[in-house]
């Protein structure tokens, strides 16, 4: 176990280092720079600005500086937003994104588990088909299409919820959370259904039934707990999905979160925010996938941790 964790942590660092390097050089290779559009500057002024941001130094020097700063958790300063430090900008915007992500994940997984259970216990009935249909819809309809219609009907037409922005307190997080929940809901319900059906046909369930356990006991005490374990494995992809979703959904509902800032900084060529956010996203996903793998090994001793994740 210790050996496995050490190895994985080592790979995590290599991956992160590669991403940081690739991000840096891709940004350097980008056409244009955040100050190139300020054409009103004279060449002298331009040189002064470039010197201020260290853009006049050779690329390898800039790279070394960047990496050194990164090791200390300093992601540089933004070119917009009055030179604010990128780390601060990200922390400032973390709140709404975290809230939406957590609410979406919890809501989606909870309803998904419920639907999956119903489908498995009432296999090949109208309940099963209904919940399978919801799952297919959840996987198929792109989150931004779904979010747009939610916004149009529930906010613009019926005026039940605020259209967007982050001004009305918790109510403003309801629609975006629902939109984000669709993906996890679909994944969880499909997954739980398959697992439950498999578990329900296993020997120990037959044994439990023959010992006189009631249907409720069998379903919740015996089957459900075992079906739940593998759900941990999809948490990694789900987290990645939530990130993807947050980029568009924060945009649609005009939420001051990290995703919205990221999309905006791509449009305005703000290198340091693009790099900072990219690294933040990558670190987040790398850590989530790692934790999921380790957690899975701990809660299900049947899994060998020696090989890859096949």
């Amino acid at each position, binding site marked *: 176990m210790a050996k496995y964790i050490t190895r994985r942590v080592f*790979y*995590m660092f*290599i*991956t*992160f280092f*590669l*991403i940081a390097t*690739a*991000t840096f050089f*891709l940004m350097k*290779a*980008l056409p244009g720079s955040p100050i190139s559009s300020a054409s009103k500057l004279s060449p002298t002024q331009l040189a002064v600005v470039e010197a201020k941001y260290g853009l006049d130094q050779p690329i390898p020097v800039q790279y070394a500086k960047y990496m050194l700063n990164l090791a200390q958790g300093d992601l540089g300063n933004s070119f917009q937003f009055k030179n604010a430090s990128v780390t601060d900008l990200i922390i400032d915007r973390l709140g709404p994104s975290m809230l939406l992500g957590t609410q979406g994940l919890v809501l989606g997984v909870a309803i998904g588990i419920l639907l999956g259970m119903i489908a498995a216990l009432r296999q090949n009935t109208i309940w099963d088909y209904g919940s399978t249909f919801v799952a*297919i*819809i959840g*996987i*198929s*309809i*792109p989150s*931004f*299409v779904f979010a*747009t*219609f939610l*916004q*149009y009907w529930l906010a*613009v037409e019926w005026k039940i919820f605020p259209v967007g922005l982050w001004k009305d307190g918790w109510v403003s997080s309801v629609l975006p959370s629902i939109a984000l929940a669709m993906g996890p809901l679909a994944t969880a319900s499909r997954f739980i259904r398959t697992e439950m059906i498999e578990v329900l046909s296993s020997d120990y369930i037959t044994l439990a039934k023959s010992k006189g356990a009631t249907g409720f006991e069998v379903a919740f005490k015996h089957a459900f707990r075992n079906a739940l374990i593998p759900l941990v494995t999809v948490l990694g992809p789900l987290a*990645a999905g939530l*990130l*993807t979703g947050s*980029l*568009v959904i924060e*945009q*649609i509902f005009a939420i001051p979160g990290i995703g919205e800032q*990221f*999309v905006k900084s*791509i*449009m305005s060529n703000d290198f340091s925010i*693009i790099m900072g956010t*990219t690294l933040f*996203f*990558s670190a987040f*996903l*790398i850590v989530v*996938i790692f934790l999921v793998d380790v957690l899975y090994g701990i809660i299900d001793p049947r899994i060998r941790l020696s090989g*890859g994740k*096949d």
Partner: protein
Amino acid sequence: MKHDLQKPPADSFERIEIDASHAERITKPSLSFWQDAWLRIRKNKAAIVSMFILALIIIMAFVGPMISPHDAETQTITHANLPPKVPGIEKLGIMDGVGTLAGKEVDLYEMKKVDTYYWFGTDGLGRDMFSRLWEGTQISLLIAFIAALIDMVIGVAYGGISGYYGGRVDDVLQRIVEILYGIPTLVIVILMLSFMKPGITAIIIAITITGWIGMSRIVRGQVLKFKNQEFVLASRTLGATNGRIITKHILPNILGIIIINTMFTIPTAIFFEAFLSFIGLGLQPPDASLGTLINDGYKLIQFQPHILLFPAIIISLLMIAFNLLGDGLRDALDPKMKD
């Protein structure tokens, strides 16, 4: 007539000789793997319906722009922002060219003195949405199919080499995959797109750059499973070359799984294209894809809901159909599911 049950008449029984040749007779026609799969998928209603929907959308993507009386590119400013109007259906009260203007329902066609029909309405530049929708579908499908094909080729080659040759080759290739696997797809796609000139090629490269990894892992696992099975060993003992073993013995066995995986890559690629176009990193005007159409429609949803509605319906139908067909194929091709 009454039978004495204790003493049945002798003629009610017939003596049957056991014919040894009968035991060897095959009563059902032997089915190849594909015939068997087809029999099973035919029973899956959802998959069959999906196949028809997909066929219809694909045909319309090519025929649609041709049957529409209007061109997708022509901008007729006087015909801008018209709601859908279809001959025949207009009498039912839907798609009759009536839209809201300053809170009142008016026939915009009459008001703007337009005497032709725009089946799906027009956009803000007076372009025919029907033609634009199908041309956009064409582009989206093209991107998805090419991306899925590239993913498949790279993934199968990489995973196949890694699994088949094993040893040090496998070690090196798998270490690379382990590192690449940690990179979030979304991040790398966005980085690549901000770096490359936006367009169809850029989107395909961005989607495929990490897309093949999933396929390569699955193929490697399968090749590892098959390469030491008895029929492969027997063939090798008989002097078969590596090429022959791969093409004749291993590939046919893993083809099903490759197809299933490719089926699921296509909707993912459609989604990614639309997603990228939606956040403004995808295709640039005047090119249209489902994603850019949805993006255009989203901006006008309060005033011109029809611009969003049709591309949203088509992309949802495409995704649902590909997912259901993929599910059906998995059930039909996966040998574990065989009863």
